[in-house]
């Protein structure tokens, strides 16, 4: 592996540095903008002209911008979705990876196929369904974050089962066979052998699902109509989504606050994430 280290590293640094600049550019601008009280996105100068915390203060004081509630909603719904969908996905992945049953292959195939259906065009159908649920129990229907949560985990089976199955397939068969010989039941094999082994991958799947949910805004903007109940994605989009009027300052400030926890989470799990992403592909 390590032959001729440092022999020709110049191109590596050039590539890496240009990518660092490319990556840094929008991040830099958004930071500058967040401290610029005039609300434009870098008006005529790339260097910071004015400095104030106005945009940040606005997020926590303006009653029309309940940023804290948005953040809370996003965190609740993303965490709940992440945990539930990993539980559902792991159980399904285990069944598909280790158990033999009728309809297994066709089941796997149809899961994949339905998953690639451009599902948000069924928005209207989902909307009508959730309206009906709203009539029965408002706390689970249209307008509630728990209703949205139900829809999100509806898709969990397809995505996560496939991702996790790839990893579970790499766990040697001998491991569960010997456990079975020792008298373990199938659920025991699952809970005591597979879940601990898969913990890092499960964590990664959970993080990816968390980020995915955090990012989602089409369904969320349709469902969460009350200002207080929105997620960060929907709430912030309003600042700059207008056709003629855009306020970048608060958007930038809100984005930075919302990104920080995700970035920390991501960086600290970086090692696992690399493993998790390639688990399905590089086996064998």
């Amino acid at each position: 592996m390590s032959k001729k280290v440092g022999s020709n590293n110049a191109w590596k640094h050039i590539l890496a540095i240009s990518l660092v600049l490319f990556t840094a550019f929008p991040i830099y601008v958004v930071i500058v903008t967040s401290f610029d009280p005039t609300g434009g996105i870098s008006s005529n100068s790339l260097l910071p002209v004015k400095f104030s915390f106005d945009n940040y203060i606005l997020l926590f004081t303006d009653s029309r911008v309940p940023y804290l509630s948005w953040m809370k909603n996003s965190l609740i719904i993303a965490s709940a979705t992440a945990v539930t969908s990993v539980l559902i996905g792991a159980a399904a992945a285990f069944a598909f990876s280790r158990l033999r049953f009728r309809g297994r292959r066709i089941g796997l195939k149809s899961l994949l196929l339905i998953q690639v259906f451009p599902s948000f065009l069924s928005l209207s159908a989902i909307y009508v369904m959730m309206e009906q649920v709203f009539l029965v129990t408002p706390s689970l229907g249209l307008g509630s974050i728990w209703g949205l949560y139900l829809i999100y985990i509806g898709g969990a089976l397809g995505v996560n089962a496939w991702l996790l199955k790839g990893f579970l397939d790499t766990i040697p068969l001998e491991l569960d066979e010997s456990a079975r010989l020792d008298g373990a039941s199938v659920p025991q094999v699952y809970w005591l052998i597979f879940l601990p082994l898969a913990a890092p991958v499960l964590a990664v799947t959970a993080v990816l699902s968390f980020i995915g949910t955090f990012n989602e805004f089409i369904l969320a903007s349709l469902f969460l109509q009350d200002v207080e109940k929105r997620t960060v994605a929907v709430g912030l989009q309003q600042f700059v989504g207008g056709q003629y009027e855009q306020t970048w300052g608060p958007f930038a400030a809100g984005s930075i606050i919302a990104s920080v926890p995700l970035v920390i989470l991501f960086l600290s799990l970086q090692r696992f994430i690399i493993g998790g992403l390639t688990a399905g592909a590089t086996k064998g």
Partner: protein
Amino acid sequence: MTKKRYGVVGAIAAAALAVSVMAVPTAFAAKKSIVIWADDTRGPALESIVKQMEAEVPGYKVSVRSFASYDALGTAWDKATAATGPDIILRDGSLALSGSKSGKIQSLIISSTTRAAFSKAAIGALTVKARVYGIPTDADVTGMVYNTALMAKAPKTMQEIYDYYTANKTSKGLTNGICSFNGTWGAQPVLTALGGGTWGYKGTTANLSKVVFNSPAFKKNAKKYLLGADGKTNGFFSYSECDSAFKAGKVPVALVGAWNMDGIQKAGIKYAWGSLPGVTEGTFGNQWVGYSAAYLTSYATKHGVRIGANQLLNRFFASEEGQLAFNEAQKTPRPLAHLSASEKTKDLDAAGLGQASRNAVPQLNGPLGDKTGGADWYAVSDDALKDIFAGKDLNTTLDKAAAILAKNFANAAKS
């Protein structure tokens, strides 16, 4: 199943039943609710005057649902069904057309007194195939404001603004001479002030068979005022990024709607109202005026509150007191549609807009939204201006646009 399993099933069933018994449904409140949907500016205003509305419909409750934005309201309305849909919705005038087509909005029987309380234009804007589809609430219209720190007096001709812009462009860092806060819709006064516009008029009625988007006068004036020596925009007029530029004090004259005033005031800009002058003194640009309205939905019938909702529309939304109360409850009031109420409004901006919009012409949603020629007026006028500003040939671009508009208008005139 083993015996043990039966036991377990029994236990579960018992537990489940016990929990569900605790949740014995409580009886409904006796009064029926009339549900109103409105956007983020009108909704909160209505919420604050629910008591006044309920006084007009004894026996009913009134509840208001405010949406986070105008777009959010539109999306929700598009997808709503009788399950959670509103009984009354507040929306712009184009809903009369689309709602009558889709059957989601009901036509109203309005009395002659109600009819007389509004201008003909307002009722006309909400009339489709001789049926009235809403009670006009406020006028959606733009007016001209000028930054008094830059121009002390209202300009009398287009040339005056132009001269000011060219003279102070560099010294004061002006980005434009005139800008529109609301895209091409808001830019209409500039087009008409320069001798163009959309369709011609026979007296005061629109003549849809005559497209003036590419009129010779406009071609001549547009070249003179809007384009520089290189054939591209000279920056005199812009209909994008107006918001930040005007608030930064870099544009002397802006075309604004009532809903833009909050931000302008917050930015600390000192302004006065006026009318956008034409090429010669004493002429003015004509802006669109549309009418937002309160509509009766067909869901009201399904919810069993049709008479109540209808009465609320006629007694509250169509009355002088109701219109004034609603207007005053709004943070940024718009000019009122109700004739006698609009004279009594205390809000300066609403009054200023009312004055400024004397030259307004009705925004006919049918022809403007028609797509027979391939795209509607909003897209066509936007693209035409963009192309011209980017340096494409002015005459051919305008002619092409006019050809599309002619097809649209001809189709709209048929139905």
